[in-house]
């Protein structure tokens, strides 16, 4: 493989990763709604059916319960299935196989069976598809022991996370924020990333902006605005939502002494709540202000564009939360 760099989209990066996996390991196959002939609802799998044939790129009936369950069975049988659940909204229909079977099989079998399954799904709001199609439930899955939860927020992670996910003997869920598919970046051809660590995406000293997935570009934009006001925000991309990389998070919080968490999920009983709790448990005596959160308003995500924008975390809201924390007028 060459070490050439090229500019590609997040979508293309995912497709390149899938193609690489299909080429390298005959046990790998894709399965899901519209992944074959249609090329995927977000066009991630476009062209793969022609290249690899219907045995390895399989369209399924509209039953998440059935095809996720089939994926688990295939994984138990020695295959390396990559199951696409169109969006996190529909994954609720597959909660039982994911939580009760995939996550627990290793435990329930006394370590005899592993489930080397990768499930991809789109997540998030912001496209005017209304409340039932705008959920951010990755935090729910991050609640469950036995699952590894990934949230690629950059083109590099979109390209690099699949290989280590496939190598993991236990189930891994990849959450792709729907707003990210068209983002572009220059990456090396031979991207290698880990699926253990959080990453500092921007260095700063006044506060830590802790975020992931579709909120990362918003946090980076806010950090840029804050810099003009002389506030130096460090931006942490969680990347892995379970297990959380406490060391990287706390190192940043201890350095900056203030933390603002940006999460598109609702705040009650959420991943952002978990982060608040850990910061208080592990870095309390290093804090210079109560940790704060910028989350979605606790309402169903509206359809109307201006209302949807008002409900979701936005750079301006992040800037205001930070300034309030710094004792400045927002």
């Amino acid at each position, binding site marked *: 493989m060459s070490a050439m760099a090229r500019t590609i989209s997040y979508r293309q990066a995912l497709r390149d990763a899938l193609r690489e996996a299909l080429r390298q390991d005959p046990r790998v196959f894709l399965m899901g709604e519209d992944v074959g002939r249609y090329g995927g609802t977000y066009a991630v799998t476009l062209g793969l059916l022609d290249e690899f044939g219907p045995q390895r790129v399989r369209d399924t009936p509209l039953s998440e319960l059935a095809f996720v369950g089939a994926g688990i069975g295939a994984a138990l049988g020695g295959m390396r299935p990559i199951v696409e659940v169109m969006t996190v909204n529909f994954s609720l229909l597959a909660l039982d196989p994911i939580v009760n079977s995939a996550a627990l099989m290793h435990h329930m079998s006394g370590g005899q069976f592993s489930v080397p399954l990768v499930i991809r799904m789109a997540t998030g709001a912001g496209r005017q598809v209304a409340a039932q199609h705008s959920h951010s439930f990755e935090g729910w899955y991050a609640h469950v022991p036995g699952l590894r939860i990934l949230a690629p927020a950059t083109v590099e992670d979109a390209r690099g996370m699949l290989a280590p996910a496939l190598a993991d003997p236990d189930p891994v869920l990849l959450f792709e924020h729907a707003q990210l598919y068209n983002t572009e970046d220059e990456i090396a051809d031979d991207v290698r990333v880990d699926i253990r660590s959080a990453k500092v995406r921007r260095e700063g000293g006044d506060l830590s902006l802790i975020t992931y997935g579709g909120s990362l570009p918003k946090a980076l934009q806010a950090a840029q605005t804050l810099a003009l006001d002389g506030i130096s925000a460090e931006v942490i991309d969680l990347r892995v939502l379970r297990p959380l990389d406490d060391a990287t998070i706390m190192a940043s919080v201890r350095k900056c002494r203030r933390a603002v968490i940006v999460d598109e999920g609702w705040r009650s009983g959420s991943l952002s709540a978990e982060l608040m709790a850990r910061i208080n448990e592990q870095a309390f*005596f*290093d*804090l*210079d*202000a*109560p940790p704060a959160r910028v989350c979605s308003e606790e309402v169903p995500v509206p359809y109307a564009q201006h209302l949807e924008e008002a409900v979701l975390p936005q750079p301006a809201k992040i800037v205001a939360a930070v300034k309030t924390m*710094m*004792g400045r*007028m927002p």
Partner: protein
Amino acid sequence: MIRFELPSLGPDMDEGTLLKWQVQPGDTVKRGQVVAVVDTSKAAVDVEIWQDGVVAELLVKPGEKIPVGTALATLLAPGEVAGAPEAPPAAPGPAAPSRRPVSPAARKRAQELGIVAETLAGTGAQGSVTLADVEAADRQSRGRAGPAAAAAPSAAAGRSQAMRKAIGAAMSRSKREIPHYYLSESIPMANALAWLQRRNDGVAIAERMLPAVLILKAVALALRRTPELNGFYREGQFIPATAVHAGVAISLRGGGLVAPAIHDVDSKALDALTRDLGDLVQRARAGSLRSSEMADPTITVTNLGDQGVDSVFGVIYPPQVALVGLGRIATRPWAYDSGEIRALPVVNASLAADHRASDGHRGALFLAELRELLQEPALLAADASPAASQDNRKKGDGHE
């Protein structure tokens, strides 16, 4: 808009009572001007302002007791127009009812530094005291630290108790934090006293020079050779001072003591020091010290000879790193190397020094230098500049 806050007039002061204002709204004030009189636990102190401006509003009334850091008044900066938009007040006023929010990081740091965080003005969210506020207060108090002020003769009944408490707090911190070492040296004073007698012959009592002045000058010059005894230990390291501001311990008639600074002892002539010392003692006992005098002694000199003790083993005043103690000048038998014994006036000089900043070897050099300098009073008299000192030392070498 400038906030003029109640400064800490020593590491042991965390609140004060405003006695009176020396300015009114509309007055133009200059940096260094005395604008208010504040009663600390030790004294009524003239508080100077550190910025030029025009007094906009007096926020505290005479008689109010307020924590250090409280805004006393607002000032318009030069060129600033009244009523122009300004930043909102970051901290709740002195009347804030509930306990002041202090961030966990600030609380931890304040504990390490021995600062009462609740008394500081907060600049963080909801007026909270942040780590930066604590560190700023620490820098301020260390920068201006000094054995604070004098008890006025008209002191309130609780004054001596409060002063005891303040001295206790500072000395406890010293003994808790500073690894002291002690050295002492007997210094023959025959030359010095003879020189003083000639100098004071026929001079009015008020203008006579005391041995203390010669000793102060000699201490300041000796410090040039051992600068690690002159300065402050703060934030884990020693920071040498650029001049010698000697804190002179003065006992007060009503009990207790203060050690205000005589500035630039190393570069002042003896006559100027004589005037400064007399003036300082008088004002200390009258309770009219200025805040800058209590702010910045870089070393303390204490003289308990009047009380008749042979020697003093002092407690260093943090953040200073050394204290020079002098006993009584007494006539004693003195044995020369030749075996000859004579009766000479001798003073016992001691050094208490901070082992974090210096070692006993350097302390011994200092006392030896002090002894040598006091054998040549005429050269001390001639010295008013660093360059002169270098020459004098060479001439003084080998003198016994």
